[in-house]
């Protein structure tokens, strides 16, 4: 593994690479979930792990998500570093009780006597023409829970580095992987075991005219939008939030203070989505620098539709550009 340098990998391969790396490096890391063993996970994120590390450390669980999250908690308290997989994020609601009432609080409740270094990962979001309930965007539910971290990678390299960081983090991390990007593109990822920083946004592209803020699957559309804007002479700053919770407001505020305009893009339903949290933070800390209202481009407040209509739900480049245009119009570029 360690020899494999900077191969071109997909996001899901990067996840797999990080799991291989960390399981080899730290014998306390265990992987558990439904079909993670011989089957290698329904998205193949855990492929090869059981062969290499055995069924004791790569654990096929019975069909019970509450159990999976609770077991991870129990394991974490014993010094293991469980990485639990939930097959689709739409089945993670069953984990919320354990995560909010326990994982997130064990350290605080016991003043550090008991800690909970666990990761719970799941594919998140739509766009893969999956069956019903398989395309949900659930980040805001978990990001509202004090004591958790919520991390959403948007590229193979960040997926690799952030997953390593999440596993090494001494506190519980919800790690939501954009299923739509699992095989969307490849990127050179060195399997060097270097973690990416948590709790920090990534300014992917600097710009002066407006700030585009997003994370996970929508970063793809945001990057395309930024390219098109550049072609039109609009210089957008692009930020991948990456760690939603705790939120690196400082980087976001600094950017918006510079550009004076922003559009936040997310896939989840609009009301109570994490874009709202970001907008609220900006409205509080960057308002006096804003030339235009803070625009959110989100999924609608509707049920995530089935395959034939899902493209209508997920914001596309057109919706992003039209929000940008509106934002730019209100107070023309200085």
């Amino acid at each position: 593994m360690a020899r494999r340098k900077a191969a071109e990998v997909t996001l899901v391969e990067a996840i797999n690479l990080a799991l291989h790396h960390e399981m080899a490096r730290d014998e306390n890391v265990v992987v558990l979930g439904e079909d993670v063993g011989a089957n290698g996970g329904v998205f193949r994120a855990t492929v090869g792990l059981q062969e290499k590390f055995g069924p004791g450390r790569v654990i096929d669980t019975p069909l019970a998500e509450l159990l999976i999250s609770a077991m991870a908690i129990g394991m974490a308290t014993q010094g293991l570093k469980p990485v639990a997989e939930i097959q689709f994020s739409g089945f993670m609601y069953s984990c919320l009780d354990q995560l909010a009432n326990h994982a997130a609080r064990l350290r605080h409740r016991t003043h550090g006597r008991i800690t909970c270094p666990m990761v719970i990962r799941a594919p998140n979001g739509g766009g893969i023409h999956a069956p019903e309930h398989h395309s949900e965007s659930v980040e805001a539910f978990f990001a509202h829970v004090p004591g958790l971290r919520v991390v959403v990678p948007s590229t193979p390299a960040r997926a690799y580095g952030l997953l390593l960081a999440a596993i090494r983090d001494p506190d519980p991390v919800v790690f939501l992987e954009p299923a739509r990007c699992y095989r969307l593109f490849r990127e050179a990822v060195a399997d060097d075991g270097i973690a990416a920083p948590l709790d920090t946004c990534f300014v992917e592209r600097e710009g002066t005219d407006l700030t585009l803020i997003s994370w996970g699957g929508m970063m793809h559309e945001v990057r395309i939008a930024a390219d098109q804007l550049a072609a039109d002479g609009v210089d957008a700053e692009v930020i991948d939030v990456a760690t939603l919770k705790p939120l690196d407001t400082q980087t976001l505020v600094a950017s918006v203070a510079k550009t004076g305009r922003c559009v936040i893009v997310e896939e989840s339903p609009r009301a109570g989505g994490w874009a709202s949290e970001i907008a609220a933070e900006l409205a509080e800390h960057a308002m006096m620098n804003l030339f235009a209202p803070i625009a959110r481009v989100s999924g609608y407040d509707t049920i995530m539709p089935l395959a034939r209509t899902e493209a209508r739900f997920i914001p596309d480049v057109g919706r992003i550009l039209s929000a940008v245009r509106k934002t730019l119009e209100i107070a023309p570029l200085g």
Partner: protein
Amino acid sequence: MQTPDEARTRVASFEIFLTRFLDDDGRPLCRLPAAARRPQRLLHAYRLMARIRAFENKAVALQRTGQLGTYASGLGQEAVNAAIGLGLARDDVYLGNYRECGVPLARGVPMAQILQYWGGDERGMAWPRTVPAFHDFPFAVPVASQVPQALGVAYAMQLRHEKRATLVTCGDGASSKGDFAEAVSAAGVWKLPVVFVIINNQWAISLPRSRQCAAVTLAQKGLAGGIVGEQVDGNDLIATCHVIETALARARSGAGPQLVEALTYRLADHTTADDARRYRDAAEVDTARKHDPLARLHAWLEAQCGFTAQDETRLQAEVAAEVGVAVKTFLATPAPPPEALFDALYAELPPALHAQAFAAAGGGEA
């Protein structure tokens, strides 16, 4: 004086039974119940199973050719699906999951609508008011979540002193979820008119039954709630009909809930997105094919009811024609319009959502 071990008192004892009427070659293992000996009924059941199988095969074929979304085939489970469909009275309510398309088919739902659903169009679950399935639940995808819902349905029936029953199916995997256990336990408390059917097809995606649960039978999960649990050979249409009808009759009569574990086998991959060769032996599947529920009933019909090769050919042709028409209708159905996102979201669309609905319909950014 007794030793400590002798001083232990037995406070409860239980037995679990398996019902099986036909052997693998369709020969009777016992005198069949009267109802089971009516050829018309059995022919009707066989035709239903044939329809289900033809549907399953076509759905997979459509997916393979890019005309349908991911599909979870019920291949091999036709007998238990048919038995449920036949056992349910029009007024009963059925809740089941994604793999049990056979039941709504038996309950009158047009094939084209089931395809429409799997084709990614919600309108596939807007079943016509005229069909017996009208009050049945849409397919449950979150595994086991339908099971506790069945209790509410059954409770309403009991409260209104109706002679109706609720039947809910789930898989062997599903029986590991807390949803299932909470429901079984509460059903016992209120003696609700509900029949739980675990369709144990031996696999939950890649997890075999043996690693799903250490209990010898899943039927004994009923004991945790103090309700009757029993096994049936779910590939034996006659036995399954008998057990399910009896359980439904008990429920309707007020005698309380029951758990039935129907033993069958998932002959197909988990879904069309799955490749079962990764985790299960071809030999196991080959063996399972020998217990094919259609072959078994076919053998019985030939031997006992004068069912001929021509009868079979005719039946297959009719069924193929029905499926063909359904596929045509399905393929001809246009995609829902974008504003369908907001259809039937609430009884009346709240004003707060008008702008979004307008935008989604192409009227400009929300």
